């Protein structure tokens, strides 16, 4: 019997050995696979287990965290949420993250390997790093000026430092408080539905995610293309431009809202925003030249990140001449984000050197040690420096004696371009009012700010005046705030 007892005992112990082997299989060899399974909630629990790092504007956090004591423990709070929503985006337990909250998520959540001084050791101890901080390039006063300027309107503002590409303001109105989406209470789902269902689309980041037909504001690009291509060699020479201008190959006549556009010089055409002159110029430059210049400004580039992705602005690369003529005055299929149009103004202000726009000045760990610092970099040389000088003259003229007089700031050189874009089926919608501009403070060697303002549904009788009349004052306030000078 002893032998059989021994065998039975061996069998029992073999069973337990099998358990040990199987446990090793799960806990060592398949641990990573199971841990990465999307249905495993441990990842998301760990993610909300500690306060999220902060996003800072002007050195002050515009975000916070509150401890709810629930399974997904820390919820995001926002200070001045609607003002900074286009920058921060939201960080929601239910709906994920957007904008900087998404782009810098790993840093903010503390999972970025950059935060670990001893990555292997921390893998072993399972230590969790506190979230790092994201310092933005936003100037609070500029942001506030833009937000106040758009109060009550539907629109967006993008402001850049032309010399570096730093983004000084990104505003989209109407806005919303991202805190409404933090947490997993039932109210979050209600808020989500309400915000998504609202006709004014408060969650749409109009500054970087929405494209509009740029209208006459696009004439800066057309002018640059014409000067670069040598189609215009003297801005004061009269052009052979009929008014109205019959679109090539069609029986459609293009008219002007302004008078004095017959054979107007480039300077005058820019000043009065003559559609006929620029439509004809675009056709003369040709599709290749127009598209090339537009693309050097940043059109047709869907890969731009600030680090949040920026919607692609469009200039068609295959059109007939009539379509090219319309595209050259910012109509037809030409569309641009407000940030793209701010880049156009910035490129002019910076002598044709287009700097890559960026929103994050530096990132630090929780203790304040630097992890990453932004470096200004040139995106492209957009056009010849000689062309830049002329374009600046043209834009200054618009503010000094043209359609953009509303943007003038005492004691500063301001260049601008108005725009009013028709849209809707048969242009039935109220036009979009545009103003793009840059400003150089007295005594300053270079322009300090470039701005694009778009106001949707701008009621206006005369197209180009509406850009200057509605969007211009907003741009003026933004530029004054950026230059730290009184606006009037």
């Amino acid at each position, binding site marked *: *019997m002893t032998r059989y007892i021994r065998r039975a005992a061996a069998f029992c112990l073999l069973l337990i050995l099998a358990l040990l082997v199987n446990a090793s299989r799960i806990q060592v060899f*398949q641990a990573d696979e199971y841990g990465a399974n999307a249905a495993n909630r441990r990842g998301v629990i760990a993610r909300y287990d500690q306060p999220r790092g902060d996003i800072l504007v002007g050195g002050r956090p515009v975000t916070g965290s509150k401890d709810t004591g629930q399974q997904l423990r820390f919820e995001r709070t926002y200070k001045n949420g609607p003002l900074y929503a286009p920058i921060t985006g939201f960080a929601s337990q239910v709906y994920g993250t957007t904008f900087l909250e998404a782009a810098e998520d790993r840093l903010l959540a503390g999972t970025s390997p950059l935060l670990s001084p001893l990555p292997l050791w921390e893998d072993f101890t399972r230590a969790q790093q506190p979230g790092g901080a994201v310092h933005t390039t936003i100037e609070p006063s500029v942001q506030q000026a833009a937000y106040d300027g758009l109060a009550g309107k539907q629109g967006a503002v993008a402001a850049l430092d032309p010399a570096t590409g730093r983004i000084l303001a990104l505003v989209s109105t109407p806005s919303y408080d991202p805190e409404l989406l933090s947490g997993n209470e039932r109210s979050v789902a209600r808020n989500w539905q309400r915000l998504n269902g609202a006709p004014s689309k408060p969650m749409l980041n109009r500054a970087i995610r929405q494209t509009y037909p740029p209208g006459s504001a696009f004439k800066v690009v057309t002018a640059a293309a014409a000067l670069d291509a040598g189609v215009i060699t003297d801005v004061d020479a009269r052009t052979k431009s009929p008014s109205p201008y019959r679109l090539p190959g069609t029986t459609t006549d293009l008219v002007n809202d302004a008078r004095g556009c017959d054979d107007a010089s480039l300077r005058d055409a820019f000043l009065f925003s003559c559609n006929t002159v620029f439509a004809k110029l675009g056709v003369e430059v040709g599709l290749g030249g127009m598209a090339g210049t537009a693309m050097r400004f940043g059109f047709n580039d869907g890969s731009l990140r600030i680090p949040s992705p920026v919607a692609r602005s469009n200039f068609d690369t295959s059109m007939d001449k009539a379509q090219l003529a319309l595209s050259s005055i910012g109509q037809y299929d030409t569309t641009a984000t407000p940030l793209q149009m701010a880049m156009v103004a910035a490129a002019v202000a910076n002598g044709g050197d287009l700097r890559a726009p960026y929103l994050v000045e530096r990132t630090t760990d929780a203790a304040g040690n630097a992890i990453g610092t932004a470096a200004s970099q040139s995106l492209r040389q957009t056009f010849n420096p000689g062309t830049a000088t002329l374009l600046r003259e043209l834009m200054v003229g618009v503010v000094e004696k043209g359609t953009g007089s509303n943007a003038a700031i005492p004691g500063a050189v301001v260049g601008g371009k108005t725009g009013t874009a028709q849209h809707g089926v048969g242009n039935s919608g109220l036009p979009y009012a545009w103003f793009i501009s840059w400003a150089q403070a007295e005594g300053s060697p270079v322009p300090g700010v470039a701005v694009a303002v778009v106001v949707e549904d701008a009621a206006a009788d005369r197209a180009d005046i509406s850009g200057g009349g509605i969007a211009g004052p907003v741009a003026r306030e933004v530029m004054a705030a950026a230059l730290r000078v009184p606006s009037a």
Partner: protein
Amino acid sequence: MTGTGMTGAAADVKSVTGRPEAPLPAVRVPRRRGTELALLVLAVLLSVYGYLAVGLAKYDAIPPGAAGYGAGLGLLALVAHLAVRLRAPCADPLLLPIAVLLNGLGLVLIYRLDQETPQHEAALAQLVWSTVGVALFIVAVLLLRDHRVLQRYAYLCVVGALVLLVVPILFPAVNGARIWIRVDGFSIQPAEFAKVLLAIFFAAYLAANRSALAYTGRRIWRLQLPTGRVLGPIVAIWLTSVGVLILERDLGTSLLFFGLFVILLYVATGRTGWIAVGLLLAGFGAFAVGTLEPHVHRRVEDWLHPFASIDAGEGPNQLAQSLFAFASGGLLGTGLGDGHSILIGFAAKSDFILATAGEELGLAGLSAIFLLYAVLVARGCRAGLALRDPFGRLLAIGLASILALQVFVIAGGVTGLIPLTGMAMPFLAQGGSSVVTNWLIVALLIRVSDSARSLPPDAYGEDGA
């Protein structure tokens, strides 16, 4: 370690006298009660440490009940130790400390899970049941002076076992299994007790009839079939219990009874053929039940495809959650109180308690727990080896097999090694009937090990194998 000394001493005695039937010389057998006491202190301290670790991890504070918990567990251990010292002074000194450590650890794990379910606290009830278990342990150790007495009650045991198995059929099913008796919010699982009674009966019957089973009857091919008169009753009882359990959908326990029977039959007769027949029958039975019975079929499907419900968009099922918990524990675990095994859901404190151990103590802690069970089983088998009466030997091996099979069935189920069948991890899982029964098993093991270690070799002198 302690047992080796004991066996060595016994061997010496034999060689000195040269005659097995000689009276016991005045050689003092090391009893190792001091070792037991030291190990008990260690077991209680480990459990209290675990309790404190949970509190510190969850609230950065020592839990308010720490002193009471430590005192309660310590008192239980001490009283049990005194009973052993008094009535089973030669018992294996590892059995009681392992039982106390496992029970203490179980209480810690349940307390830990209570922190996630403030509406359903179970640790206190489990402590009360543990007290009942220890009380039963003490009563058994004090009253049962000689395990051979149980042999007389073999038929009483089998009647009792069958009654306990049948009664739950009259009560409504809980979570798909008809294994509970519920009166007034107070529930017990009678099959738990039945397994001890059945082990006693199997051991007694096989001890009495083992020669007839092994050597009489017809021989078919290489298989010696015993006469129906000898084999009939025991097969009938075994089939009845397994059948009843299948009716009640208590598959874990039916698997346990099946294994127990095959092991004991093998040990009693030494016929390998029985194992083959047993495995064949088990295979047929398992296939039939797994294919035909929807409840079991689903379990088998879950075992084969634990993540099917995720792919179907229904979220992870209990088994998948359990696997996630084990995986999350990794080598060293998250630490007590820092895991998320509560995601498993309603059975987290009972059937799936091992997942919490796996997640928060890691492979290291889980291996330690498995090894504790292994030592418990090994010491039970060892007592069986040292005993000289066939009933005692079969009883010891039967009780040890119950523990081993039960650990294998439930731990194998929650780790995806075999299809999941509802069962309680001995001493760890929430469940009054289970903890009380396991204390009874340990009491019987203490009793047989005391006999094995206190008596000179061949004192019962009837088994030569």
